[in-house]
């Protein structure tokens, strides 16, 4: 057996071995409480809920290590930063709501969200120009309302 073949076999064995380390698929409550105009809700539901909610979908490829580790870490971090399943809770504090609206606008406007790898993997991550514009307008107006309610 050549060194190269041995290398491939070792790599394959390593990939099979790490499948033992499975990541738990975790979704919280199916209720999201996220309210927005229909075009915005529809776009956010399709493109953002995958990571930023408790309603993530877990296709088969998200169960294969080491890819599964990356996906789970991304979803955990995304939920920490912005979880649409907790949207009503954010709105309870106008200052927090203003920051969340501001961040959404900034991320969508700068094309940082949805991230490139999600867009590459899934058509769900590809927002149209009209969808982006709708989200931006909604976020700008939402931030203005929140700031009016809580000026500090």
């Amino acid at each position, binding site marked *: 057996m050549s060194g190269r073949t041995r290398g491939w076999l070792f790599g394959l064995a390593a990939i099979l071995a790490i499948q033992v380390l499975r990541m738990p698929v975790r979704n919280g409550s199916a209720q999201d409480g996220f309210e927005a105009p229909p075009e915005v809700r529809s776009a956010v539901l399709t493109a953002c809920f995958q990571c930023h909610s408790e309603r993530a979908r877990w296709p088969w490829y998200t169960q294969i290590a080491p890819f599964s580790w990356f996906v789970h870490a991304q979803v955990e971090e995304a939920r920490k930063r912005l979880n649409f399943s907790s949207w009503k*809770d954010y709105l309870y504090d106008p200052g927090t709501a203003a920051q969340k609206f501001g961040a959404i606008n900034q991320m969508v406007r700068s094309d940082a969200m949805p991230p490139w790898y999600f867009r590459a993997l899934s058509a769900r991550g590809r927002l149209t120009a009209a969808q982006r514009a709708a989200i931006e307008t909604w976020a700008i107006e939402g931030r203005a309302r929140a700031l009016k309610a809580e000026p500090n």
Partner: protein
Amino acid sequence: MPCRKKTILTFLAVAAGGVLAFSQAVHANGATVATVRFSGDRFEPAKLTVPANQPFTLEVTNADKKAIEFESFDLHRERVVRPGQTITVYMAPAAPGHYTFCDDFDHSVAEGAIEAR
């Protein structure tokens, strides 16, 4: 020491202890207002106690020279606080438990905690 004097002193000591223990949560018009101050790269007090299952407000003062981002992932709150600024954070009723908060701009700053009882 006469027994009465001892009783009064004991009472005063217990009362003072109670005031100290609950100085983090001042009740005004029925709503609980807790306060926390950021200075010298730390939150003071580092641990607050609030009543569980009741809304409360948290006043965060940044007495430092740099901006901080008061962040509680557990309680879903995120606010930038500029130097010298005091902000009011409105909190929904929290179930009994331990909730952490931090300066999300600087993770070397020790976390603070809110205990809902």
